[in-house]
């Protein structure tokens, strides 16, 4: 029960599901433009998700849970980026083959075996994130591998699928989704469970990111890539931390989850030790104790406080709120004292696990969601009130107490959910999807769905992938990042710079410059990977510079390497004045080639500076003299020659 653990000892295992949006013109199953986001909407639809019966005639575990939450779902629509397909009022059109091509490229990059016939499947999601209730998805590649830390990271599969909605709000029983992102094509790359420390997880995310970027056909920017990190420890179970936005977050999240699982296994042993082994052994009873808190100093529980909340937060009965009158419900947990404060994630306890389930499933989301006997708030009358509810519940000292509040029906759902969460605890770690937060903690999102939620999409025919098609893509395939990194490293390009170039797409430019303009790889890597950053940051539209112009520049550089020293002076007008040729820019900015008599003019220039500055601080004199000459000589004479000449001139006057 500690926050520091030995990952190897606890048997930490991670795998990744990396999602990357593709740079296609249109969405995956309709003809809407992809990548056009809006902040407003001009239409709304209200829907509900109803679980469908699975093969065994039972509702799938996730499905059942989602149905219990009885969510009202609102979709925000905007004419600009959605049509009737996204709102599930039109069947899918044929799958976007451009998206399939990018997925094939990605599969080839990862050394995957390409599937011969791609079948669209439906993956059920009942949280409303997709209006149909399922995501259309298809495997295009399997069984890949890539070099990682001197070993291999296995790739289970690469699939192409449609993106989901963006959540706008989730209050009580009402969840609001924006549909602009819905239906955009993305690829999901699933790794094997081959990562053994939090750092490895983060590193692998970056590596796969570079593979995706290497294709040159993916989107960049906020939300364009997201990953799910699957974590388990020995004796635990797979938990999916969903939608980790940045690789760096993975380190704390994976660590936190490992600690959580170790602690939950400890709790399991504790519970079993106390004789909790069967469903019947968990006895949870509850009572309406609204009256106890009618005038409590714990104002959160007072009915008047609730009324104020309902009003100020505009919660409507039967919409955001479940059925029934306001109720404070006290829950007796028989024989479970001491478990509420059981540690889970670093700085969190088992009560947080209960709160997560109550928030999601019962729709009770007013902070802090619950109070409990092992961390009862401190206020005047606290002990008396706690004693009162314990006596109403006929608690014994070995019992724990939880208090929840809200619409009566929701509080009853909460009681049952508490019981179910303890039932899971007897078993150790439940399969869950958890939502990550910037502080490194996670919270319950939903029960992890099983393969039972996948079924064929009868709306879409399969696509045969011909060998010719695969061959064509193979020929045009960009270099794999690890091959490129090795080549760059051999040329002396630092790893940091080559990673940057691959991530930002500069590497393909560098390769073209080397191949077609005969540029030096190290120099091109430095100029494109390092020197361009400053201009980009200054807002210079360097992305508008065409390949032809870059080739022109690097041909000129090859002829006169010294031009590289006037980089900013040349590249800025290249971006801003597309009508000028590189030669014209050089002529205008640089007053011609190396002046034949530049050395002769140095002593005079140094003298002028010396008389202006006075004194005999020689380094200062050198600096000031060189600075004065830059305007006239940069890009014409190598600066190191200028410095040498100036130093000589300064030194000539002791």
């Amino acid at each position: 029960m500690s926050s520091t653990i030995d990952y190897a000892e606890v048997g930490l295992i991670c795998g990744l599901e990396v999602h990357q949006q593709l740079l296609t013109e249109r969405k995956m199953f309709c003809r809407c433009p992809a990548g056009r986001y809006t902040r407003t909407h001009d239409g709304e639809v209200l829907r509900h998700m109803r679980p469908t019966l699975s093969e065994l005639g039972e509702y799938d575990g996730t499905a059942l849970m989602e149905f219990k939450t009885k969510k009202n779902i609102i979709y925000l629509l905007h004419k600009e980026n959605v049509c009737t397909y996204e709102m599930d009022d039109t069947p899918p059109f044929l799958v976007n083959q451009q998206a399939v091509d990018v997925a094939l490229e990605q599969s080839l990059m990862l050394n995957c075996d390409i599937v011969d016939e791609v079948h669209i499947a439906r993956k059920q999601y009942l949280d409303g994130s997709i209006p149909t209730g399922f995501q259309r998805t298809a495997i295009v590649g399997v069984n890949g591998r890539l070099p990682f830390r001197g070993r291999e990271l296995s790739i289970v599969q690469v699939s192409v699928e449609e993106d989901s909605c963006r959540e706008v709000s989730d209050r009580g029983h009402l969840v609001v989704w924006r549909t602009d992102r819905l239906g955009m094509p993305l690829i999901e790359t699933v790794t094997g469970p081959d990562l053994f420390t939090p750092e490895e997880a983060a590193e692998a995310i970056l590596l796969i990111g570079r593979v995706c970027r290497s294709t040159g056909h993916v989107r960049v920017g906020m939300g364009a890539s997201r990953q799910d990190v699957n974590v388990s420890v020995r004796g635990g179970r797979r938990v999916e931390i969903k939608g980790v936005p940045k690789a760096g977050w993975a380190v704390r999240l994976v660590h936190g989850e490992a600690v959580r699982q170790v602690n939950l296994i400890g709790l399991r042993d504790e519970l079993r030790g106390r004789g909790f082994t069967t469903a019947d052994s968990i006895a949870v009873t509850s009572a309406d104790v609204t009256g106890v808190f009618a005038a409590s100093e714990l104002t959160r529980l007072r009915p008047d406080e609730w009324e104020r909340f309902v009003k100020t937060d505009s919660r409507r009965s039967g919409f955001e709120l479940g059925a029934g009158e306001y109720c404070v419900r006290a829950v007796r947990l028989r024989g479970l004292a001491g478990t509420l404060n059981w540690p889970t994630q670093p700085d969190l306890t088992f009560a947080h696990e209960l709160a997560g389930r109550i928030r999601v499933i019962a729709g009770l989301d007013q902070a802090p969601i619950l109070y409990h006997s092992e961390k009862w708030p401190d206020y005047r009358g606290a002990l008396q009130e706690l004693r009162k509810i314990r006596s109403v519940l006929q608690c014994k000292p070995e019992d724990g107490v939880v208090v929840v509040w809200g619409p009566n029906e929701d509080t009853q759902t909460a009681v049952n959910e508490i019981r179910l969460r303890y039932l899971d605890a007897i078993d150790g770690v439940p399969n869950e999807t958890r939502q990550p937060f910037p502080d490194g903690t996670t919270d319950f999102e939903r029960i992890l769905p099983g393969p039972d939620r996948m079924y064929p999409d009868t709306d879409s025919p399969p696509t045969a992938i011909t060998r010719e098609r695969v061959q064509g893509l193979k020929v045009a395939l960009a270099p794999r990042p690890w091959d490129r990194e090795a080549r760059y490293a051999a040329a002396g390009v630092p790893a940091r710079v080559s990673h940057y170039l691959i991530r930002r797409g500069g590497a393909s430019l560098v390769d073209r410059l080397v191949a077609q303009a005969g540029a030096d790889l190290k120099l091109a890597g430095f100029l494109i990977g390092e020197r361009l950053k400053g201009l980009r940051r200054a807002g210079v539209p360097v992305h508008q510079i065409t390949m032809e112009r870059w080739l022109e520049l690097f041909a000129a550089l090859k002829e006169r390497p010294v031009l590289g020293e006037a980089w900013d002076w040349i590249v800025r007008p290249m971006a801003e004045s597309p009508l000028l040729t590189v030669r014209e820019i050089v002529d205008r900015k640089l007053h011609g080639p190396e002046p034949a008599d530049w050395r002769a003019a140095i002593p005079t220039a140094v003298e002028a500076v010396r008389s202006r500055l006075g004194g005999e601080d020689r380094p200062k004199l050198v600096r000031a003299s060189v600075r004065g000459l830059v305007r006239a000589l940069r890009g014409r004479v190598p600066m190191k020659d200028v410095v040498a000449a100036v130093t000589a001139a300064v030194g000539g006057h002791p």
Partner: protein
Amino acid sequence: MSQTPDPLKGYRGRARETLTRFGVRVWSDVHLENDTGSRFSGVILPRSETFDDLHIVIKMKNGYNVGIHVDRVNGIAEVGYKEAVYKIPEKEFPRQDSLPNVTLLGTGGTIASRLDYRTGAVIPAFTPGELYGAVPELADICNLQTKKLFGVFSENMSVEQYVVLARAIGDEIAAGVDGIVVGHGTDTMGHTAAILSFMVQSSPVPIVIVGSQRSSDRPSSDAALNLIHAVRSAAYCDIAEVQICMFGPTSDRYGLLHRGTRCRKMHSSYRSTFRTIGDIPLAIVGREKFTYLTAEYNRRDRTRQVVIDPVYDDRTTILYYYPGMRPDVVDAIVEKGYRGIVIAGTGLGHVNKPLYPAIKRAVDRGVHVVMTVQTLWGYVQMYVYDTGRDLMNLGIVPLENMIPETALMKLSWVLGHTDDRGEVRRMMLEPVAHEITQREPHNGYLIMQGGLPEIDEWIATHWK
């Protein structure tokens, strides 16, 4: 039904050969290895016969399906066999004496269903027990009985089915049910609603036709809510007529009850596809109550005697007029022995002059020709222009504001009774179930034009 099912269902040619060679079949649990050594573990699925004969489809353990080219199959080893059992769990439908009795008649459309996770096939839930398993809310509404009359797709509904259906409704009414629900595919739901409006007259109880636009295997399906609305309408609604009950808006909000003779499917895929044409719907079916939008309807009355009149002559057709239509089309119809033609004319009910002689020939040969408008909304007013008056002189019967599909159904029904020109004319023009109305209310025609600022504002602030 003694035919043995094909163990290689859907596989033809080389794919079939390959499966046979490795001694595996559909539903075999296999390890398949391809030429690069990738292993695919899962169940061999049946294949659609319309797909090529070059791929074997496997549902992998993770739920995804992939197709593997026969040229690349190195080996297939069977490790098990798991046939799909198409059976819905039955739970006994609870009976409560205090609740009304409703009968659901099935025609083949699936309203409730279970999904087969391996094939994606939809297995209809139909018996009360199955329906209860799928839509348990029904038990709070009524005591439900179900009868499967036939299993045909909506587009295959035809004269035999209409007659069987009308008779079955008569039987249920005679047996004393409180309401009848007819499960039906949506494509030709309007046609069935129209013909039933003529074949089943003066019903003492509601007859509610229902279906779904999103099949019930989808979490977002409209099926369950439509079924709940329809069953509630059959059990409690006061309107004892043939009605269609489907979504009002595309949002999960409420259903609308449309009169059987005035309702049309207006979008190929929207949930809110059914619209009353030239009038307003009968009622809104909300979660708690019915909101009646008109007082003009037959009220529920158990003492009223139903008239079942299931006759039909299918030697009828619709002629959808277009500019430049050649007269020989009409001649061809007549020559083939058709007895009735519904023209969907332009504007107020027009066709071009070159057609006149052909129409005259048809009428002279005893064919009954009636006129409706392809604008759907509005009346046939043939006396406005000379052309119209000429047509009437030829013997065409203008059908006021009867919608073309309803006119076809009614003409077929009328021709089942008589061939007498005067009698046909009288019956066609005498409304049985509001198929012709005397007045069109100004809100009976509303196709709001998107893009107009006031309409877009309304759309932005109301759940569609």
